[in-house]
């Protein structure tokens, strides 16, 4: 209630009186999940370097990124989908699907690069299917992508059967896993991840299209009334997700020089985990690419640290789950306290927002 405009003060000096932001900069920067996650990651690395033997080696970071590259790649477009309030659980199966197509076409004598293109296009088509079922037919994306999750995993397994296609040119597979330059702590794929991340970050945060994406997540109806091509946008995102996932499939196949139907099994939940850990609201409308990536990196670092500390993967999955819960619980408590101040109305607003909790 800053500008007392009763009696019609001149518009421009009224304009001058509006603050740009309700909360001071430090609160806006520090009190957000992205920051918390990034800080947590850095802290973890520091602790690991000082306490975990063998951690402080380029090889650690190299392998860390190599192991998490598929997840980091896939989560980027899925982040946008979640911001619109939808969800795509089929990405893991798309990895297997494109891996199968890639392997089979290559085995059939198609040149590697062409095979890759075919596989990626295949993944794009899965995206089209998801998108059409969600937008044109109007089915909930959660249901649709659970279905396609089963479907395309099935097709991948069916296509390849017991065969594992392995004979990929070793120079390529070597290149894929190689460090950026001799002794570099990061592999080649880092470039790809960063490139994709920047492309999508710009798309999401600095284009009208991206503004539309957020608007859809905030209120699809309002977005539609504001000239956002809601369904077109959602369809586009599903296709992008399909393309990136299948590209990941090709990469994954080469990284482990092996095309089998089970490639990428269970990735979908890892992807969603990283994204929500990165502060993207599963209700849509809020989130950043940076945060989602940070979430992915944090999980990767956790795994690496625990493995080097000789802790078994059973404990690792507990830690992963606990971290995820902890992150939202902290946010929840923060919200709980601020709701105390901001009254129930916003609590109800939260309730309202909850409406979209599962409009996915």
């Amino acid at each position: 209630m800053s500008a007392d405009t009763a009696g019609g003060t001149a518009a421009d000096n009224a304009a001058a009186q509006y603050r740009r932001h309700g909360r001071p900069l430090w609160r806006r920067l520090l009190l957000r999940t992205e920051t918390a996650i990034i800080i947590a990651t850095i802290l973890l690395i520091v602790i690991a370097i000082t306490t975990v033997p063998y951690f402080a080696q380029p090889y650690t970071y190299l392998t860390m990124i190599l192991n998490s590259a598929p997840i980091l790649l896939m989560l980027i477009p899925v982040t946008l989908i979640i911001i619109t309030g939808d969800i795509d659980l089929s990405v893991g199966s798309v990895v297997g699907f494109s891996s199968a197509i890639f392997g089979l076409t290559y085995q059939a004598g198609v040149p590697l690069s062409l095979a890759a293109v075919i596989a990626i296009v295949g993944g794009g088509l899965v995206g089209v299917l998801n998108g059409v079922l969600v937008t044109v037919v109007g089915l909930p994306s959660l249901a649709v992508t659970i279905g396609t999750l089963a479907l395309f995993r099935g097709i991948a397994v069916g296509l390849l059967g017991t065969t594992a296609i392995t004979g990929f040119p070793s120079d390529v597979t070597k290149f894929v896993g190689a460090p950026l330059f001799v002794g570099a702590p990061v592999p080649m794929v880092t470039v790809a991840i960063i490139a994709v991340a920047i492309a999508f970050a710009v798309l999401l945060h600095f284009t009208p299209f991206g503004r539309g994406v957020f608007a859809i997540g905030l209120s699809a109806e309002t977005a539609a009334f504001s000239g956002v091509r809601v369904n077109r946008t959602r369809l586009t995102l599903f296709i992008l997700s399909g393309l990136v996932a299948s590209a990941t499939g090709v990469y994954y196949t080469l990284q482990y020089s092996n095309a089998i139907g089970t490639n990428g099994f269970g990735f979908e939940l890892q992807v969603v985990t990283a994204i929500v850990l990165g502060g993207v609201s599963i209700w849509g409308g809020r989130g950043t690419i940076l945060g989602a990536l940070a979430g992915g990196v944090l999980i990767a670092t956790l795994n690496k640290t625990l493995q080097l500390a000789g802790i078994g993967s059973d404990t690792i999955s507990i830690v992963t789950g606990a971290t995820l819960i902890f992150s939202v619980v902290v946010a929840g408590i923060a919200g709980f306290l601020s709701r105390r101040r901001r009254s129930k109305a916003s609590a109800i607003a939260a309730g309202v927002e909850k409406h979209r909790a599962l409009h996915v």
Partner: protein
Amino acid sequence: GCAAPTGGSTGTDAAGGGSLTVIPKSLGNKYFEASDKGAKAAADELGLDFSEVGPTSTGSADQVPFIQTAIQTGQKAIAIAANDPAAVCNDLKAAQDAGVKVVAFDTDTDCRDIFINQATVDGIAQGLVDLTAAHLGAEGGTIAILSGGANAANLNAWVNAMTALIKAEHPEITIAQVAYGEDVDQKAYQAAQGLMQSIPDLKAIIAPDTVSVKEAAHYLSDTPQFQGKVWVTGLGLPSEMATYVTSGIIEQFGLWNPEDLGFLATYAADALVQGTITGKEGDTFTAGKLGEFTVGAGGEVVLGPMFVFDKSNVGDFSF
């Protein structure tokens, strides 16, 4: 599952020796828990610093991080049963480049110094087919194969060998179908049901996978109508099969001693580290109580022939 209820890894700091990391296909798998037990025993004898780590799932690349860790923590040797030989190859190579000796057991991979084979592929195929053929007798009949994971390299090798063998030596036997239980109880159970119901004159099922053979036996014991009609054999764990063998549902099934497998793998690893063997054909080394072994063609060491269990002995084994 995991190594011990206490946590994913067990480290015993014994003096001298080298350090050995054993990476099973997945933690909590009964078969590999047994082999790891043997490996640990051997490690203690040899005074190796022993650790067993591995994934909880059997995804193709799930073992990779543990290989990387082994390299980083400067292990002297790795003994691995690869879920996906191709997927772990690059990192195993890296391990070898880093001077880590790589022993493959249970499942072979191209990137290793030596492969400890529980029994030759042909040996296993021969064993199972002989059991079945003996049961079916001269008039033979229709059989089915119920395997485990569709991508398990060793299972596929055995299945192929059996198919070839039957073609070659047993014209009276026809294989109607190869189904996959995917290492999941429920799937294996339903697959067994499917085979018995959908193949009218099914005489026998060969299940070269511990989960599959157990569930096949289980379905049989639940379903008297097929008892005596369908004969089930395969590779199973005595501890799991005991009930079915004692109740007469199952007459015979094969396996080797997984504890010995791990035991031998560990001795081989140690021999490699000590330099007593290099993994080339003709090398010989002694594996404690198991006696002397010779490295065969392609750097393969064979534990021994398949062991057949029946009423008389099934109770005597802990694994």
